[in-house]
């Protein structure tokens, strides 16, 4: 039997100290970690339960932004009136994810750190460099319908499954981290995640024993925010492709645009290329097509997922059109 010990942290700094020991992991909602433990994919020897730490507030920041405590439940963030009013793309992304029951359990920090849903990652008999470095990637040449089209490599073609993180990427969110030595740092969400490279098992820049304590959202950018998730069924399913778009248009010209994709890469994929193709251009379908081409210029299909490239283009075009019309 895989025994593990458990402690419930009551103090944030003490929790970081407690998790510094070998084999220890944080647990919050447990909606992903417990499944992975049952399937023998994660085998922590010690769990530090941080779900009751005083990190559950959503606070106003002086710059007009919000600071979301890492232990705030997904349901609570989605329902917060300030989030719904000022960051509707985040609220929409959250309610499109998982199910009501899971959102009631899942924390903001845990959502950021959920693992991929690649079926070969879940199959301990299959090669998976993320689960077992050096064992190969069974998804390459296997059934890869849900896999990455951007930023993937020979070692791993998994996608990051979060919706929330895609909206946060479009919002220029920063992740607040507390280190074992008590130091605090902030990392832009786009820098927080890593591409697979040769080390797909290392998914973020989190240092050992570092804890996510909050997500800071800067004051909302101008323009209409939309989260559009495309999936195989109407609920309770991960994105094939999703788009978070924020468009500010004035008299038919796009002043500013933010674009992030979900379901296409190892991380939430902010597309600076698409944004560059939009800024200062007329708010027309021709412009959106150019942006979609720019966004997908380096996209590579794996066979089963080739359709995602065109699906991402079309989803982006329509989402931009809706956002520009309303802004």
């Amino acid at each position: 039997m895989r025994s593990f010990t458990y402690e419930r942290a009551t103090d944030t700094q003490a929790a970081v100290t407690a998790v510094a020991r070998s084999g220890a992991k944080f647990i919050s909602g447990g909606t992903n970690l417990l499944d992975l433990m049952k399937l023998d994919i994660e085998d922590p020897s010690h769990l530090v339960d941080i779900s009751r730490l005083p990190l559950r507030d959503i606070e106003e920041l002086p710059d007009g932004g919000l600071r979301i405590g890492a232990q705030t439940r997904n349901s609570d963030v989605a329902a917060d009136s300030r989030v719904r009013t000022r960051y509707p793309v985040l609220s929409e992304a959250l309610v499109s994810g998982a199910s009501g029951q899971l959102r009631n359990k899942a924390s903001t920090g845990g959502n950021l750190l959920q693992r991929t849903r690649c079926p070969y990652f879940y199959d301990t008999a299959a090669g998976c460099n993320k689960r077992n470095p050096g064992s190969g990637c069974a998804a390459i040449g296997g059934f890869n319908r849900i896999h990455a089209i951007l930023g993937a490599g020979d070692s791993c073609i998994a996608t990051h499954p979060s919706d929330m993180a895609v909206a946060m990427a479009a919002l220029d969110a920063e992740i607040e981290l507390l280190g074992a030595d008590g130091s605090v740092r902030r990392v832009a969400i786009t820098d927080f995640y890593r591409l697979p490279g040769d080390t797909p098992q290392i998914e973020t820049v989190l240092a050992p024993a570092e804890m996510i304590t909050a997500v800071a959202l800067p004051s909302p950018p101008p323009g209409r925010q939309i989260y559009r998730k495309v999936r195989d069924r109407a609920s309770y399913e991960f994105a094939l492709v999703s788009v978070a778009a924020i468009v500010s248009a004035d008299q038919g010209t796009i002043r500013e645009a933010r674009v992030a994709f979900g379901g296409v890469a190892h991380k939430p994929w902010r597309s600076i290329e698409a944004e560059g193709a939009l800024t200062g251009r007329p708010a027309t379908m021709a412009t959106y097509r150019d942006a979609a081409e720019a966004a997908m210029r380096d996209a590579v299909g794996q066979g089963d997922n080739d359709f995602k490239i065109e699906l991402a283009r079309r989803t982006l075009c329509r989402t931009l059109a809706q956002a520009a019309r309303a802004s």
Partner: protein
Amino acid sequence: MIGQAMQRVDGPLKVAGRAAYAYEHWEAGQPLYGCIVGATIGKGRIIGIETEDAERAPGVRMVMTHLNAPEQGIRDESIPFEYWRAQPVLTGPDIHYYGEPVALVVAETFEQARAAAELIEVEYAGGRGRFAFAEHEGEAYVPKTVNAGLPTDTSVGDFDAGFDGAAVKIDQLYTTPYEFSMPIEPNACLVAPRDEDLIVYVSSQIVDAAQASIANTLRIDPARVHVFSPFVGGGFGSKLGIHSETILAALAARELDHPVKVAMTRQQIFQLIGMRSTSSQRVRLGAERDGRLAAIAHDVTMHTNPDVEYAEQTAATSRSLYAAPHRLTSHRLTPLDLPRGTDVRAPGEEPGLLAVESAMDELADALGMDPVELRIRNEPALDPERGVPYSDRHLVECLREGARRFGWEHRPATPSSRREGRWLIGYGMAVAIRVHLQGPAAARVRLEADGTAVVQTDMTDIGTGTYTILTQVAADGLGLPADRVRIELGRSDNPTSWGSGGSWGAANSSTAVHRACATLREKLLAEAHDDARSALRGLDPADAVFSDGDVRIGGASEPLSELVARNHPGGVAAEGETRFMGDEPNYTNYSIHTYGAHFAEVGVDADTAEIRLRRMLGVFSVGRLLNPKTARSQLIGGMIWGVGAALEEEAVVDPRSGAFVNRDLAQYLVPVNADIPDVEAVVLDGYDDKANVLGAKGIGELGICGSGAAVANAVFNATGVRVRDFPITLEKLLPGLPPMDA
């Protein structure tokens, strides 16, 4: 009482958690827990298996492999129905499919067993497996018969001539994927030895088959195997027979002389119970310009496991459906090193109607004809292959009533012509047909001296409502209030039946209970007639009315309880039964089916090709309804599964390993509530006097028959894109969508 929408009598037990399922039982003390270890290759041999570490792991009591498993009975093909045959496991080093059990670890806790299972090291010599259906389709052979003993091929008239001469032709290939039953309750059991006997709690659709199969495998007297399956959390075919978890638990329980529990994990269910075969179906339709069919051919190739042949009766679907003078059907099997094909809800009709009813829609489109009208024009007067009359065919009424209720006249007559915002809107329809079968069933009805009745049979309730309908039938048959009837199901010590399967359970067991009640009534009336103490003495039993716990003849009346108590202080019992349909002339002289018409409206996102059902209606003819409430649940459950078959469900094989890739319910998609915004089932009043004395026919599978095709046809109507490779996922539609506009 029969025909009323009675609430489920077992509902309170279930919502309170007091209805115990197989794995929840407790017998003879603290059980041990087994964990199955599956092969991680799809074809080859075990050349070494290292179990020492597992055997030494904490709490482990036994590791069973092919090296130390007890000898078992063999699969005796002279036993006519496979679910009664032995199901031996761990019989040798050969691996026949990915996930096949190679060991069982038994430990004091489930967690210990699972952890020890990880310590077993198996060394394999890999063979070359055949895993990809498309690559091996050319190796198909002709099976001797297909499922349910139906003929493999049939031919009427001269198909080639009829098809060649037809004015309008459809000749298309449709493919359907591997699909699984996946009931919520996994395959699970508790087996407890008691001296030489075995007490077996197992999730089973057919208790008699479970008892025989365990006894045949363990080579013991069936009378020593006591099977209990009082509540079953869904079956859909996956629990018609017992599976490796029960055999392994029984072997271990006897070896250890201790109760053993084994449940399959969800991932194991995808490997160990078998699935609906993948199919490739060529459908050819030749019609005159007025829509009348001259020729129908339905040629099907499916996969089979080489050791356990299973031929789903997919082409048989079209044998009784439409009139046409020239007809062909055929079934072929391609051996693959995959788990066996098996019965999954509506074997034959579910994949068969996806193909045939899509083809009929293509024909209607080619003719420029209303698809409802096309079906009506091809309504046969006699069963077109068997040449016998239909017992009770009301397909045209279903079509007309469904079209009226659905507002079919508002359908977009031209594909891809209606748009609401970003949604392309389409209407589709398809017919439902499902053969009605009768099997042997016996039931005992016992009247106690206090005027209560107990019904005893080994029939099961797999979530369908057996407890409720038998309460109604017995209350009706004895004139008792429902709360004075108790139903005892799922015990092998009760009179035997063929359980729940093939949609026959309700009609079989209801008829048996009805007959038992009739026998009891006659016996009690005969006794009263000659009994000086009875108020009914000398009165004509033919005028007797049993009602509200009393027996009345004319103005005279006596409580039923007094009639029983006077002559039978210990109670009185009678048995009733049904016979196998082959012994019932009606089933030879008539074509007995249930029917329906499905109507669906879908929206397809013009940009992303996401398909969303908007509403769905089924109108059905099933003879007499026993209970409209439980019937509706069965019908809409089937319809919803059909939506999943059309749009979502597909188990994917990795052709490199032979493993199913998406083997959990996060990856193998079935509809969720949000996918089904509006679904309704309507049943026409009816009574099929050829089916049985109650006039009732099976409904468990009818709802899934054709519902997927209605959705598929609606997708075509919405988009003008015909997808013939099921399920219709968005990437198959995307290339056919209109370019994006402003």
